[in-house]
């Protein structure tokens, strides 16, 4: 199968498809971020005609607008912060799960792992929506709690439509992305290392903190990247669970494309989002590679 044309016969069609429906649209969006918005939304014509003749009408004013208005930088920082808190909380919840599965007898591992993935297979919006019921002020869960603290004269706790609800939704939806790489890493650890640490007098905490955890860092970074990137750009969760204060950068991108219909500026926000997310993922990959040495 060494013939040169075989390679293009088999690899060509998927490559062509992804070029047309992924690479080219991304490039078009990059160009769109330098264009003028159209009169009725969308994009203005890319060619203008004046005395000097026809020429490309491109502008950097969309980027100038982005960098000169602190509001957008703040929005990015806020989204970064939400995504970061989500990643850390995911790590906290996922670690014991992954550790338990990795240290279970082989024949139970698949079932325990499947139990983690199973909720993940049901529709994303439904999993987010479920939290409206749970976090609602009158819900069976929070309602009873609020009645109780009401007796003590305290104001009822409002969780739904606050940033806290957004973060809970983000953690819930992204949890399996953290469990899987962590488990894949922890499963490979040699139990003899823990025995050795014990023989040398390490207690349970030291065995975890000085043996297991450092060895699991590649898994932590991988899971971190897998949680962070989608959490950073999301708009449905803040839309459903967050109030006006829970808005993230994804919501503003959505607004620019659908409500304001300012596509060039929406493109600027999307490009910045992608560059930041990919840069941070690259950083995580770099850390993962370094910690393996």
């Amino acid at each position, binding site marked *: 199968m060494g013939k040169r044309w075989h390679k293009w016969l088999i690899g060509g069609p998927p490559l062509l498809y992804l070029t047309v429906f992924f690479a080219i649209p991304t490039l078009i969006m990059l160009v769109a971020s330098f264009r003028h918005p159209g009169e009725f939304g969308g994009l203005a014509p890319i060619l203008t005609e004046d005395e000097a003749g026809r020429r490309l009408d491109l502008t950097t004013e969309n980027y100038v607008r982005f960098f000169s208005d602190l509001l957008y930088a703040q929005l990015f920082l806020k989204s970064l912060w939400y995504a970061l808190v989500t990643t850390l909380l995911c790590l906290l919840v*996922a670690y014991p799960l992954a550790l338990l599965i990795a240290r279970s007898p082989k024949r139970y591992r698949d079932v325990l792992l499947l139990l983690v993935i199973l909720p993940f297979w049901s529709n994303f919006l439904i999993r987010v929506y479920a939290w409206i019921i749970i976090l609602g002020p009158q819900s069976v869960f929070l309602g009873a709690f609020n009645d109780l603290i009401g007796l003590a004269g305290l104001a009822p706790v409002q969780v739904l439509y606050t940033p806290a609800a957004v973060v809970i939704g983000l953690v819930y939806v992204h949890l399996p992305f953290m469990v899987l790489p962590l488990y894949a890493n922890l499963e490979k650890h040699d139990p003899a290392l823990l025995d050795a640490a014990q023989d040398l007098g390490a207690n349970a905490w030291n065995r975890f903190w000085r043996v297991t955890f450092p060895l699991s860092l590649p898994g932590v970074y991988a899971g971190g990247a897998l949680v962070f990137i989608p959490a950073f750009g999301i708009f449905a969760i803040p839309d459903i669970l967050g109030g006006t204060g829970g808005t993230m950068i994804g919501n503003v991108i959505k607004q620019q494309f659908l409500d304001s219909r300012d596509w060039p500026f929406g493109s600027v926000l999307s490009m910045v989002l992608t560059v930041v997310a990919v840069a941070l993922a690259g950083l995580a990959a770099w850390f993962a590679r370094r910690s393996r040495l």
Partner: protein
Amino acid sequence: MRRPAWLWALALAAYAFLYAPLLVVVVYSFNDSTMNAQWIGFTLDWYRKLFRNEEMLTAAWNSLLIGVVSSAVATVLGTMAGYAMYRFRLRLLPLMVVAPIAIPEILMGVSLLIFFVMIDLTLGMVSIMLAHIAFCIGFVAIVVRARLAGLDDSLTEAARDLGATPWQAFRLVTLPLIMPGVVAGALMAFTLSIDDFVITFFTAGPDSKTLPLVIYTMVKITVTPEVNAVSTLLMLVTLALILIASRLSPGSLKAR
């Protein structure tokens, strides 16, 4: 193996966290109340309403159609991509396969919106399918590529030694051996397509609502327990698909 009690306790809490919301949705789908707050009594009304909901049924049909077509095309293209990545050195292909998975989903949604409007393609079923195929190819390719990596190359070589053409060797030896991976990839593509919200949101026209889009509107505007009923049914369908998948190819579920 060291599994102290605190580890069990924390893991159990995490499992409860994973399942509580789903359980709540199922239980409330039988609640005889228009609010999602209190349990009033048992009813099947929400399911009855659901089956008379024209918009919902159309959306379910759209989702199914898009899912079948997109996953079929994505499986063929993804299998080709996985095979090409395994056998040949194509520098651009692995990048193009992984990039749509690695970047924020919203980027793909909005860039395809601009692209489709630019080439004057009416937003609708076709544009949704074209978009879904694009993001499913990578997932199929990765699963197939992983399956190929576990394959013994000498089997294909033996077929070649016995006089099979490359195509025969692929069709009669390699393809049957990687079939579980291909099926797993196809099912994954189908679920991804049925579930996708973000990319569909930007590439759907006004007359081409899919189930996630209708659910999104319902959840945002009027929270009625009808949503619980749809959700419960969808969970059942997904569960059935997973059971079929695990029958067809044990171990393939780990791929996702």
